């Protein structure tokens, strides 16, 4: 039996579906986060050069990876909304932006806390750090632009353009350590393999999956609020039990 996907791209159907899906992402996220951090702090060995300070990597790397990945997903949804005029895609893009901004901020903040004891500086204007800061500004710019336009459909279109143009920055962040001399070290996880102890890898991977599930749960919860806000005047929203109370 074929599933009618278009049925679920209607906000009225997706609202209920998203509500049912959230616990399936939220609970595994919490459990994996706890398990990943346990491995990171108690099982993974200390590092030969950086001793215990390297453990901030278990938060720093997942946050950085997701800040870039969420941006691409957000730009993808924004482009879908622009091209196909699907309302739900634009709402998903809007729902992802605050979480992306949060991860970009966590990445910069944890990086500063790591940089001071290891490099000797909170901040340097090298290509990796600067392009990640631009990513945070792109997220904030997207959110601000969307909020500044009263008509949501016009806001969707204007901010979608910003999101799509900004996606040029993501490959720059990723390859910055390769293209230019930077203080930030090169990639640990490469196509050819990972230059990291196995238990460290496991902890980092578990926290990455946990953060990813958290992103999905939070985006679904946020898109539900956005749907309610935008469809407040429709009949199906007025008939909802949680609205009538």
């Amino acid at each position, binding site marked *: 039996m074929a599933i009618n996907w278009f049925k679920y791209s209607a906000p009225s159907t997706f609202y209920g579906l998203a509500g049912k899906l959230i616990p399936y992402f939220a609970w595994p996220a919490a459990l994996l986060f706890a398990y990943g951090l346990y491995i990171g702090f108690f099982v993974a060995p200390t590092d030969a*050069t950086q001793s215990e300070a390297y453990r901030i990597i278990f938060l720093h790397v997942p946050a950085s990876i997701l800040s870039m990945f969420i941006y691409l997903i957000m730009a993808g949804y924004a482009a879908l909304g622009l091209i196909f005029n699907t309302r739900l895609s634009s709402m998903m893009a809007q729902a992802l932006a605050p979480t992306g901004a949060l991860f970009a901020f966590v990445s910069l903040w944890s990086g500063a806390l790591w940089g001071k004891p290891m*490099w000797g500086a909170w901040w340097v204007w090298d290509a990796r750090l600067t392009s990640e800061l631009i990513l945070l500004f792109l997220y904030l710019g997207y959110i601000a632009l969307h909020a500044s336009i009263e008509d949501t459909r016009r806001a969707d279109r204007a901010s979608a353009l910003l999101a799509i143009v900004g996606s040029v920055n993501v490959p720059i962040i990723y390859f910055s350590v390769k293209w230019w001399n930077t203080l930030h070290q090169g990639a640990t996880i490469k196509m050819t393999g990972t230059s*990291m102890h196995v238990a460290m890898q496991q902890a980092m991977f578990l926290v990455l999956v946990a953060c990813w599930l958290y992103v999905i749960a939070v985006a679904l919860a946020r898109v539900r609020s956005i749907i309610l806000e935008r469809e407040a005047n429709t009949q199906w929203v007025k008939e909802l039990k949680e609205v009538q109370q």
Partner: protein
Amino acid sequence: MTARQKRLAFIVAGLVLVAAAVGLVLFALKNNVSLYFTPTQVANKEAPQGRSFRIGGLVEVGSVSREKDGLTVRFNITDTAKVMPVIYKGILPDLFKEGKGVVAQGKIEADNVFHADEVLAKHDENYMPPEAADALKKAEAAKAAATPISSGSSAEYPVAK
């Protein structure tokens, strides 16, 4: 073309144009985007003359010496091809070590020594427990003993071409 296809084509073409423009700008600014110059670039006079800039490379093994005041340090930065002597007065980061990465900000004075006012440590992307690091060192030493012809220091540090 339908309206949808037109919008798609417009977005793809726009993205390609923006990417090309950004690419050209970054290529033109290559030297400004890089955080530091290598000793080879400095030797080729590619680094700014007479003003402050950053130099990066490895701390040459056996070159670190402290002066009597306990604060002033002299060492050489090398990219395995050229060497730059550096003098610095201040506290060094914990990861500052011979044979490891370093980035220093400062100016070349008349004595042809790089007078640094900030020294940062650069670590590599490898993470391993101390036992594994020891085992690696031993294996390398055994290899070096087996082959008397020295292959120079390993290229564990990215050097600009």
